[in-house]
């Protein structure tokens, strides 16, 4: 069985009764690469396009990747991500810059952001609750790479903040 969209919103709470599908499991994948030389974070976020369209429906039919894509789809997406994803260095929030997006025909939506970063990291905090209000089962897998240090985290609806220390 397979499904494109499920009747969703909080749905799965009561709904997944029998309409369960391969896509019942909501996952996003974020890669944060710390570039020491250019003092920057380079961020890519992979999402399922129709999940995002569903979640942002109140702001309009995004129709990503079609000719009827909302003219301000990029702004809506960027604003949504900035509201639900942030990186904090020594308790100070980093400003994210929207770099661009890609939509693939297999339903993957990639969003790209960059931000300034210090050359050496001390205390880092990441908040990630992308889509978890819409899909309570949403899991946001996040990989953090800085030189040889690689970390990975799973953010869920009720554990959407991770903090770690570099030494």
């Amino acid at each position: 069985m397979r499904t494109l969209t499920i009747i969703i919103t909080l749905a799965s709470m009561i709904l997944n009764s029998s309409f369960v599908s391969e896509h019942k499991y909501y996952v996003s994948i974020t890669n944060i690469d710390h570039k020491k030389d250019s003092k920057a974070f380079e961020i890519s976020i992979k999402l399922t396009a129709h999940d995002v369209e569903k979640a942002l429906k109140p702001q309009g039919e995004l129709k990503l990747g079609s000719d009827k894509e909302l003219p301000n789809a990029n702004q809506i997406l960027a604003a949504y991500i900035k509201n639900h994803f942030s990186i904090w260095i020594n308790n100070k929030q980093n400003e994210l810059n929207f770099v661009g997006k890609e939509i693939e025909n297999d339903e993957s939506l990639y969003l790209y952001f960059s931000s300034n970063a210090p050359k050496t990291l001390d205390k880092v905090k990441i908040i990630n609750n992308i889509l978890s209000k819409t899909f309570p089962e949403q899991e946001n897998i996040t990989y953090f790479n800085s030189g040889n240090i690689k970390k990975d985290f799973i953010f869920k609806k009720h554990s959407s903040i991770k903090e770690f220390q570099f030494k």
Partner: protein
Amino acid sequence: MKNIFSLALLILTLFSGIAQDNTNHNKFKQLKEEVATPNVYRNGSGAPGHMYYQNRADYEMKITLNDGEQKITGEETITYHNESPDDLEYLWVQLDQNVRAKTSDTYKIQTSSIRGASFNSLKRLHSDFDGGFKITEVSLEGKPLKHTINKTMMRIDLDTPLKAGQKVNFTINWWYNVNNMLEIGGRSGYEYFPKDDNRLYVIAQFYPRMCVYNDVEGWQNKQFLGRGEFAVPFGNYKVSLTVPGDHVVASTGTLSNATDVLTKEQLQRLELARKSDKEPVLIVTQKEAEKAEKSKVKSLKTWVFEAENVRDFGWASSKKFIWDAMVVHQETKDVMAMSFYPKEGNPLWEQYSTKAVAQTLKTYSSYTFDYPYPVAISVHAKDQGMEYPMICFNYGRPDEDGTYSPRMKYGMIGVIIHEVGHNYFPMIINSDERQWTWMDEGLNTFLQYLTEQTWERDFPSRRGAASKIVDYMKGDKSNISPIMTNSESIHQFGNNAYGKPATALNILRETIMGRELFDHAFKTYAQRWMFKHPTPIDFFRTMEDASAVDLDWFWRGWFYSTDHVDISMDDVQWFQVSTKDPTIEKPLAEAKSNDFPEDISTTRNKKEIETTYAEEDNSLYDFYNSYNPFDVTDKDKRKYKRFIEGLNASELAILKSKFNYYQLSFSNKGGLVMPLIIQFTFTDKTTETIRIPAEIWKSNNYNISKVFFFEKEVISIELDPNLETADTDISNNSWPRKVVPTRFELYNRSKSRHSGAANPMKEAQKK
């Protein structure tokens, strides 16, 4: 002192106790302990054993669809054949609709929280849909049968046990309310079209069905909770469907009263379709369907369908249906590929649906067996994909102006291939979906991938290629389960039960076994278990038995564990054979020795110690101060001559060949052992790829080294150059080390390539 020593010893003992439990953890250990012992029902080669049996259930049903009340009423007579060697004192029947009953466990066991609940979800929490079967009669020859309903299962107690080899004939009558799929979900139900006030029904799990009884599970009566799909016995069906007179019906089986329900023209068109193998022929045109949409016929019509040797039955009914069909020729029989869709599905459906059905049959059959049923049908249903024998319900709805995004197009073709493909797994190769989702979804997704690639070059397949599973497999293990996990307990359902097994099979085919050995073994499995009930081990055993490839390590790693692939090429050392010729080797050694960096103190002392004692007093010098160990002596020359004289011709050849030897060291960081695919690039830019089987890890699962030699000199080495193994970290796969660009960097490089909003189709229309 003594005490400290014994304490140290104790700690040491404790530690070694923790470090190893003295049992075999080798990754190549055979699977014997994990799997069932072969027996007379399932033998050691993975085939059905000589006493293999399966029970069968035949159905005769009269079904009425009440469109006004969205209600289905049914009467069925089940003939249950006990082919098992056991006498059965009770029978178990599945009542799938009961997941929608208000008291359903499915609702009870869902974890939920009120924080952040949306208004919609609260509305659903208060939904008063009265779902579930209302059983009105269970009887045998007119006498009521004692029965007990336990949620989605019903036990029928027989007065006298059903003896081995006997059959029993009993009746069940029922009705239930059909759900609006778009409002409260469901694998089946209806969609309401407010514009023309019509409904489109896609109906399944609509009747009480027999459970499977077999040698593995006894009665397979594990409750239906929603995820783990179905385990159903084979049987013959005769079903009469009474629906509004202006409806068109699509169903499992062959329409046996076509002349009663179809017009003469429709019958003629069907005959044309039976001869058309290039383009579908319309049986009901869009114009005719749009006309029917407006009709309000009060009469009813009964469509009768018969199906042989199927494990379930599904159907669809609407006055909105457009219907097209074409024939697919196979060696052993012709099949009708058909589609039923409302105008809302066009133009996508008229162009692609039936052709996608046909392509699926052709490709899947080439890897398994000729499709054995007379029809294969794709029915348009919004937002879903679900499979039944001969019929499936698929999404793919363009925008109202008839344009669509490429995502919608490929998504629709993909889902049709997938759901039609389910005819093979699990409809014919009837695995137990309630236990093992991967056995049908994984194998089916694998063949879906192969079919998509025959549809169009570089079809955007979501799953199949090794590189697509990397993000899943490299993740935190607390969020991953082994493939061999019961359907209800799987983490990341799609990746676990669809993506990973499909990728694993593709890796087996391309990298481990090769296409020829794999395809033969896979086909052997399909043909052995066609119209039977296989278990995972029957699959594992057959793949090995038919190929002579020991795959226990592969099943153990990919199916029983959550290990991932990360092989690191840690070190490369370059050697050349010493010529032993002192006139060559001694100057080389001297150069090498001079090459060694000077110690910092030596450098500074050259300046600070102006003269040493010996420089002042030369009488401190002796023979050793003038001796150069790198000087070539007569003794050296004599020794070399003796050495050369002692060599035979082949040894001399090696000595003269000037081969370059490379010792490569690898470590297994991810846990999964995999073959080594190593590409060497030489100074002249030519390359050579060497493939080494995974068994290189057989005695040391974690660290190995191997020597390769070439006449040419190597400038770079790459491990897994074509990304075949799903290696999760390719930054340690090359020598010299390469920086692997991130997705972000790739995007930045090719920014101009993607506009993100292109719909070339629409652009072309504007011109």
